């Protein structure tokens, strides 16, 4: 009897150990990713020099006298993301209002299904559509020699962040207590005024979360941007061909070597730091919402 008990006990301990190590594995993965990025990313920054790496606006990695300034990538990523937010977020919030408040239930369900389907479309498909539809359209509309520029990238990114902005903010808007709206209606405000002056401001923190989520998605997107932004290391201009942080890594990785390759890892490290900061903000806002 005693021996059986011991055996069972040992088995239980082993199982517990296995599950515990699964839990620790996740932490291990995060540490592993961070360490690998730091080890591979820091040497190039050291060699190039902090000042030169971050604030030099010239990236010419394959030139005879190479220059590794990533300011164009940082600025392009920032402008591109901002642009996508400026274009995408108002449309997203309006659509969220439609789903959460204005539409009859059946229509709201249909539209939110459409949003889910849009969210599921792979980024390369968005990139392809951008290449074939948006790039020529932008070229014709503004009489440019080439339509693959920051503006096209902004349009594609705006479409890509819409689903997450809509679904998160419509959840936030429908979570606003009914009493708020009833009070406003009772005071004589119309339904539309109530929605935009009471409900949406009350859902502010949820909408902020949606926007931060959209920013995270836009800044991390690589393939779609690669297909529509033209991929030249210019300082950003609305109608200039640009490279984002993500596409800077992706476009030279396959043939790079030596310091150039290491500099690409440094770019990835910078991107990782950006994303971690955004996630931190996201975590803080989500936590505040819960409270």
């Amino acid at each position, binding site marked *: 009897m005693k021996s059986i008990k011991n055996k069972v006990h040992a*088995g*239980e301990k082993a*199982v*517990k150990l296995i*599950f*515990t190590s*699964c*839990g*620790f*594995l*996740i932490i291990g*993965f995060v540490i592993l*990713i961070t360490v*690998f*990025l730091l080890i*591979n990313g820091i040497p190039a920054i050291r060699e190039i020099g902090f000042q030169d790496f971050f604030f030099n606006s010239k990236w010419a990695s394959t030139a005879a006298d190479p220059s590794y300034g990533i300011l164009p990538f940082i600025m392009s990523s920032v402008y591109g993301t901002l642009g996508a937010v400026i274009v995408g977020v*108002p449309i997203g919030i*309006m*659509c969220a*209002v*439609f*789903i959460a408040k*204005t539409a009859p239930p059946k229509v709201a369900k*249909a539209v939110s299904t*459409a*949003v*889910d*389907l849009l969210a*599921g*479309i*792979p*980024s*390369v498909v968005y*990139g*392809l*559509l951008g*290449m*074939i539809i948006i790039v020529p359209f932008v070229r014709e509309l503004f009489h440019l020699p080439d339509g693959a520029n920051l503006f096209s990238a902004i349009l594609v990114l705006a479409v890509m962040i*819409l689903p997450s902005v809509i679904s998160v903010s419509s959840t936030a808007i429908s979570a606003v207590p009914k009493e708020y709206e009833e009070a406003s209606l009772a005071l004589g405000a*119309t339904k*539309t005024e109530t929605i935009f002056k009471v409900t949406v401001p009350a859902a502010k923190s949820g909408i902020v979360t949606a926007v931060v989520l959209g920013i*995270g998605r836009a*800044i*991390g997107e*690589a*393939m779609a941007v*690669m*297909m529509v932004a033209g991929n030249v290391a210019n300082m950003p201009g609305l109608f200039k061909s640009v490279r984002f942080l*993500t596409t800077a*890594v*992706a476009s030279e*990785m*396959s043939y790079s070597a030596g310091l150039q390759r290491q500099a*690409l890892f440094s770019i*990835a490290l910078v*991107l990782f730091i950006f*994303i*971690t900061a955004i*996630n931190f903000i996201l*975590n803080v806002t989500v936590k505040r919402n819960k409270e």
Partner: protein
Amino acid sequence: MEDKISEKRKFKNMLLNTLVYLCAGIIVLMLTGIIGYIFYRGLPKLSLDFLTSAPSLLNDTVGILPNILNTIYIILMTLVIVLPLGIGTAIYLNEYAENKKLVGVIELATETLSGIPSIIYGLVGMLIFVQFCSLGTSLVAGALTLVIMTLPTIIRTTQESLRTIPNSYREGSLALGAGKWHMIRTVVLPNAVDGIVTGCILSVGRIVGESAALMFTAGMANNIVYLFESFLPEKAGSTLSVALYMYAKERGEFEIAFTIALILMLLTFIINISAKFAGRALRKRKENDD
């Protein structure tokens, strides 16, 4: 009531309402436009031959069989590895963990993983699996990279369904003399199946659409890889998404790209709908419990 408000207010209301309808209309139009356009461009080239042949200059065929196979291999390999890890973590968090701080750290780690963009996964996967573990550019390196990427999804959905299992089930089993592991195996896990299935479906969706994380880990080759060699090092191959990118961006063969896009779109729609059904089953049980 409506007539009593001023013209200016009326105008403002009307404007805002129009904008709301307009934006919802844009979304619906965009989706139908995307679907219609992809069908229009992709359907003509879609044929059995296209699906079941490999690209070959000799036979003058352009098929996507290798890419379909690679996608299936990567999905299978990823799920086989990620399921035990993800379910294990969820069980640890929900059934074993006593230290609240540790749970917080693990959940933060999960959040962090789910926020990392796929291009960084691709790069880190290349550093760790392709170079450090010397697997070479291979399907297995790609699958391992995707394991880390899809882990948060599996953990989250499994955890959600574990939470809906009433404690009385566990207590009943333990009171009958079952050990904890026996209890988890016979009571907890069978009741968490719907969450696990949802996690699988969502992960498959993510894998099918993934390209940036696979380009530098699983490679861009278009040769047929057989099942028995799919998990060997140095066996590179591109999935459907990566192939779409290559055909569109590097080779400018847009008709092929659109046909792949059509297949990808149909796949993601099927995945989306089945995830919804699985999720609905989960919610139903939750409501029954409440």
